[in-house]
């Protein structure tokens, strides 16, 4: 039921109580009619009854967000033409009036920069991989590579926000929040949407909690950020001399008081608070088991690389993501910073890939060997691409690349996507030649894989219905297996 009505009804009750002593009877009848007036749980039940709309291909999502925008031209989108024309100016007909960021707008020349790295090709799928990501290349038979993604934003903050919430301005719910709202948590002892952060060696861009905000959805759907320290969820264990039974009693009493004040005031946040306390109580049992990486066998540690035991690293977060996901967390969102290679890109890229390549591939392999890959969708990608021309000084083997929204590459694996390559860019790697995929299309497709019709899954807020894809988005059916 929508908040406006609920609030309105609660307000009416107050007026009745004070002005019409007999009105209370009317209200009692009212609560018979609108059962969810006192009970926020019904809302969820209602949704669980209609979702998923159809058989889901994926039950869970792990989103390995490469924050700062990795260079598609140095990783996946191999363009020999750029190497041939290294140093020559980008033809104006190709740029075609594309706006530039403040960082290269003052450049008078746009010298093309061919990648410094060698590429290998997967003969089955035709996908290219640079030498910096041998591990990802080794699992290429499982990857669905989209080379024709494009976005509308040209700077990090709006582009990130767009990717995460479907809108460039803040205040909309994040993808994970939508999924949490629609499908809920599989495991009631863990949050449905968790967030893990890590930082690479390259030039970094910030991440901020608005990216995993619940927006206008109930705040129980906000992403739960795990700390990158040794204790992923802080203040979870009971204080000394308080055992689980005491805690239970305490929570029951608090819930009682909260219920009372909810009936008085009618603020839905009170119900959320009660639910959050309960979730935290249940998490006390589950989280220590899920987050302890110490018991992983050595073969797994070697697969992700030994950094996976070091809290706060990308490798550790990948391993943690597998553990959370296999324990029933619907949406695990990772952010890895450091891809913003405006200058010295090749050297920074090598460092980034060292951190990211092995664990990303290990996660796919690990899910596969546990029989979880076919029900888990893994997404790897940044918020936009990087330019084919150089920012700053260009030498034979060093260059920088600016932001490029017109085309970039992401890959997905598992969860109902078809391995292969989708979409194609032109010889300059600047524009999309065929099968463009907009960010909205990407969202629609992910929703579809989760069994949700993105056009039907809405939330009414401030007088109109919102969707993750708002008013656009088409499912890219060709990449669904």
């Amino acid at each position, binding site marked *: 039921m929508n908040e406006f009505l609920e609030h309105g009804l609660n307000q009416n009750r107050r007026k009745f109580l004070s002005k019409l002593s007999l009105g209370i009877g009317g209200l009692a*009848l009212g609560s018979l009619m609108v059962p969810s007036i006192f009970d926020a749980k019904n809302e969820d039940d209602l949704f669980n009854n209609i979702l998923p709309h159809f058989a889901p291909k994926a039950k869970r999502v792990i989103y390995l967000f490469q924050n700062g925008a990795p260079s598609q031209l140095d990783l996946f989108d191999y363009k020999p033409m750029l190497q041939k024309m290294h140093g020559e100016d980008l033809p104006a007909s190709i740029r075609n009036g594309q706006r530039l960021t403040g960082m290269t707008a003052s450049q008078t020349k746009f010298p093309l920069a061919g990648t410094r790295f060698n590429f290998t090709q997967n003969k089955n799928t035709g996908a290219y991989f640079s030498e910096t990501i041998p591990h990802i290349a080794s699992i290429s038979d499982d990857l669905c590579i989209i080379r024709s993604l494009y976005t509308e934003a040209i700077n990090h903050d709006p582009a990130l926000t767009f990717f995460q919430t479907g809108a460039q301005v803040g205040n909309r719910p994040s993808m994970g929040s939508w999924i949490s709202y629609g499908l809920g948590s599989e495991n*009631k002892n863990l949050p449905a949407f968790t967030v893990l952060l890590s930082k690479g060696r390259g030039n970094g861009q910030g991440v901020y909690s608005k990216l995993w905000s619940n927006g206008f959805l109930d705040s129980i759907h906000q992403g739960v950020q795990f700390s990158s320290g040794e204790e992923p969820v802080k203040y979870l264990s009971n204080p000394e001399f308080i055992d689980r039974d005491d805690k239970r009693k305490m929570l029951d009493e608090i819930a009682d008081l909260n219920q009372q004040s909810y009936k008085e005031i009618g603020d839905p946040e009170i119900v959320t608070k009660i639910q959050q306390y309960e979730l935290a109580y249940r998490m006390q049992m589950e989280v220590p088991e899920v987050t302890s990486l110490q018991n992983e066998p050595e*073969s797994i540690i070697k697969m992700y690389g*030994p950094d996976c035991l070091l809290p706060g690293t990308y490798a550790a977060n990948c391993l943690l993501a597998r553990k959370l996901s296999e324990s029933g967390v619907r949406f695990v969102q990772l952010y890895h910073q450091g891809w913003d290679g405006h200058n010295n890109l090749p050297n920074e890229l090598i460092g980034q890939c060292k951190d990211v390549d092995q664990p990303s591939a290990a996660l796919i392999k690990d899910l596969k060997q546990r029989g979880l890959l076919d029900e888990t969708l893994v997404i790897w990608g940044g918020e936009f691409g990087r330019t084919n021309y150089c920012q700053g000084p260009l030498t034979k083997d060093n260059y920088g690349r600016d932001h490029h929204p017109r085309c970039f590459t992401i890959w997905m694996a598992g969860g109902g996507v078809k391995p292969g390559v989708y979409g194609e860019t032109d010889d300059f790697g600047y524009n999309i030649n065929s099968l463009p995929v907009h960010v909205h299309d990407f969202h629609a497709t992910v929703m579809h894989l989760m069994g949700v019709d993105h056009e039907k899954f809405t939330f009414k807020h401030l007088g109109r219905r919102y969707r993750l894809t708002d008013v656009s988005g088409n499912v890219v059916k060709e990449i669904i297996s």
Partner: protein
Amino acid sequence: MKKITSLLFIENILWVINPYLILLCVFSNDIIVGPWISWLGQWHPVVLHFPIVIGLMISIYLLANYKLANKEAIEKNVFRIHALLTSIVAILGILISLGGSYDKSIIISHKWGGLAITLIAWILVLTHKNNIFKNVLLRKSIGLIYLLVILFFTHKGGQLTHGKEALSLPNKVKNQIITNKPDSLLTVYEKAVNPILLDKCISCHGGERIKGSLQLTSIEFIKKGGRHGNELLNRIHLPLEEEKHMPPNDKKQLTKEELAILTKWMQLGGDLNKALNKLNKNDSLYILASQYIAPRNDKFKEQPDLSAYNSNYVLVQYKFHGSDKINVSFFQGSFYKTEFLQKLMEVKDQIVSLNMQSIPLQKKDMEIISQFNNLEKLNLNYTKLTFQDIASLKVLKKLNSISLAGIIIDNNKLDQFLQEVKVKKIQLWTNGFNQKDIAPLSVKYANISFSVGDNLEDSIMKLNNPIIDQDSTIITDRISVKLKHFLKGVTIKYTLDDSEPDSLTSPVYSKPLLLTKNVTLKTKVFKSGWLASDVIQKSFYKSELRPDTVILITKPDPKYMGTGGNTIIDHKLGELNFGNGNWLGYAKADMVFVMKFKKATILNEIIFNALINTGSYIFPIQTIKVEASEDGKQFHAIQNADYTAITKSYKKEPNINQAQAFKVNIVKAKASQYYKFTIGNLKKIPSWHPGKGTPAWIFVDEVFLN
């Protein structure tokens, strides 16, 4: 008189239910009704006749200005009873309208009309005490108005229940007969158009209900259209969000193909007799219509509620809304009870996927699972079961995929298992089990997809670096330093004498180290089966002395001023982030400052901690000049140091980004109260750098004095 008081309670009841009614009217779109409530609503068409009759009688009585003996008392009570019945009927009316299967436009006027009638009835009760009712003209006009209101709005209601044509003469309704003729003889109408209309339209437009006066049961009616004329094509093409879009947005929608068939057929003039095989074979209408298959009437059955099977430890859900297939997942092994599984026997034939990961299962649990006849996917990762325990799964004929990660594997038993349990996919990852080990079986069972994963246990890999767990590098008195590594069973070695730690002679770290003097700690980890890590080192500096003030003679760049002179004696290091306020940065000039001590102090050793970040044009300190003074005015040089060699050793690549200590030893130390330092920057960046020829930055975050 007794009678009159006894009916006064009705007025009170009116005070309760009329506000409630208004509430319902206003919020009727958002109300959710349970089955009992909507059952109550069904009484609306039955009960409504009483208040209508009484209402009509009242209005006629008022209009006729009929004289009664005990007028006051009777009027009062009749009004009251009438108002109560009206209110009840109105509420029931709202309830029935929530069912939603009525023409919306009529409902809205009927709803507000009904409310008006109720309110008039209430006003009659409320105003009866007043004198206005004595006025004959007023009585007559109230009667007339009420009569008209009742007639008009109840007529609307009549149309709702009895159909728009309720009061007109009956029409002949031609329902199309569905034939069993072969396709070759069918008309387009018979083959596709009529089935589409039957499936998606006729439940409201034809047969029992005829909304908006539109009947789609025969061609004459289709052509004639409804109340608004022939709107069919317009409305089905409106966007879904439009209110006038048909079918209504909560009903089953036309597919693209169906939409095209209807459109094309109407455009052809809606010819009833157009035979399908008379159409051109390339005509899109022919292609669409001949491929159209009328739907069998198998709507989603409303599936029974599963909430009884769900708990914090078990998730039991339909595969999707409307499906009868069930997915089950268990969580939190420590709370597991066999009863949870036992309970699922009630829906055992619907379960297609079962996730039992990390649940401590036993043989008896497997016996239950073996009765889930339609199980397709089973996850038994880390269940500590043996192949013996799971042999009972052989009865599951539909089992397609099984995950057995973490279960100890014996090739013979696995072979036997695969002979009995016919799966297509098996996931077998476990410690110490390799792709090689599975090779003979994967040849034998070529139609099974094995997933064993990479077992890298024996591959040699480099250890990651140890962590020196101490943020500070400054020793005022002593400092405790912890060394950490997260991999079990590693040996952490360290040295404090600038030598490289090795696996033989260097001391093994066992407890935190206590450091008391300038020292460089080097550490490295070793483990068998792994390559040793890199050496990690950190220098700790003694800082015994602290001046009372630092006076900056040359000013730092305004962006990198820190907290002024205090920045370099606050015992806070700036890490590698030169913008964080713990650094003093100088761009174009030397850094010159004076340190003042309360008492004359001997300085033997001065260490400048400076940043080098060539990518950001920050180069090493070139020269340091130390001068001393007794009065703060007359300074004399006591030491010079030169570091230009460091910069000269730099080559083009790679970028350097590190903090470095620049130490000055004062050979002839003498107690002084004032010391002046002049720190020279690089005046011209070398030619290999993009900033060649321009002066370089220097950044200093701390000065250690001994």
